[in-house]
């Protein structure tokens, strides 16, 4: 799986995405802390080919793809998706009218 790149790059991109998702207090969010702790825990190992490290890297890359594509999908949706019909009040307002108010309800 050479397409994954280095773990550092994935980690940085993932933390950036979490920052976009969380807002102000992103450093205290459980996701941020969990990701950092997981990467730290798998850093030091005596094995040359660490399977757990690769699994973690793949999971991080998958989560990064999820966050990124959700953000892009939402942006596209906001830009292109239709807003639906106007309500009768808005339609009346287009030509300067207001709908009559009937205190007791209709009929």
């Amino acid at each position, binding site marked *: *799986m050479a*397409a*994954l790149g280095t773990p550092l790059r994935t980690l940085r991109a993932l933390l950036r995405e*979490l920052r976009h*998702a*969380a*807002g102000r207090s992103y450093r205290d*969010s*459980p*996701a941020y802390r*969990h990701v950092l702790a*997981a990467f730290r*825990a798998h850093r030091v190992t*005596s094995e040359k080919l660490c399977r*757990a490290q*690769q*699994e973690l890297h*793949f*999971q991080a*890359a*998958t*989560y990064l*793809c*999820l966050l990124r*594509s*959700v953000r*892009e*999908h*939402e942006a*596209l*949706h906001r*830009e*292109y*998706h*239709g*807003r*639906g*019909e106007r*309500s*009768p009040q808005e339609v*009346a307002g287009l030509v300067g009218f207001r*709908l*009559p*108010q*009937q205190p007791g*309800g*209709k009929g």
Partner: protein
Amino acid sequence: MSSVAMWRGCRRLWWAHSPPARLPRPPPVDAGSGPVGSCGRRAYAPPAERKRFYQNVSISQGEGGFEINLDHRKLKTPQAKLFTVPSEALAIAVATEWDSQKDTIKFYTMHLTTLCNTALDNPTQRNKTQLIRAAVKFLETDTVCYRVEEPPALAELQKNEWDPVVAWAEKRYNVTIGSSTSILGPNIPASTKETFVSHLASYNMWALQGIEFVITQLKSLILSMSLIDRHITVEKAVLLSRLEEEYQIQRWGNVEWAHDYDLCELRARTAAGTLFVHLCSESSTVKHKLLQD
């Protein structure tokens, strides 16, 4: 794409709020005639959006697993069961989804929550055997097994991109799959299906729901298995699944509001499904080794 109509139909499946809060009804229509439904709502109005009603999202551990708290209320599934997940990482990811909603709650972006709800409620009420059967049934109509004969550029592209994946699957699971250009598709021997059935039986129920979801999104059992076995990345799997579309996009041009929209949605769903499967089927233990110096 009439996504609005689709969401309206699925709206009942996605309400996850626990206390008996009434759904906010839009104000009654004053003007008389028009496409007014029996409950006073217009037929084509989008559903009233749920505002974000909580400030903090946190996780707590209960008897069955990890639970999500919205402020002080516990999250529940659409069938009013308590929302419990077995894995802490999954709970954190779901909490992040809920926390990243601003102003309004957009359920169509919360893929992990939807998957957890499906696993907990099992609305289609299928048991493990039925799920496995539905998953393996996709092999007969697997995308990477269906090849075209013309245009030759596309046939060549399919051969170059899809053949390695099929070869990998055949080697990994010790089966014969093959590919075909006929309308009936490849002839999958029964032993191949048996192998896949027994392999899928080793996953638990939650992971199987995730696997079946990924297969339905990618329209291919082989691509899903290579994704779950970490042989290819999510982006590559989505690219392979949409190979013909990508070819046509390169030929005729890209339409952002259709192609990119579908691409992002497919990537999001596939990534969510894969992450769900991995988080539900792993068990991590930490072994501390003593440093000897």
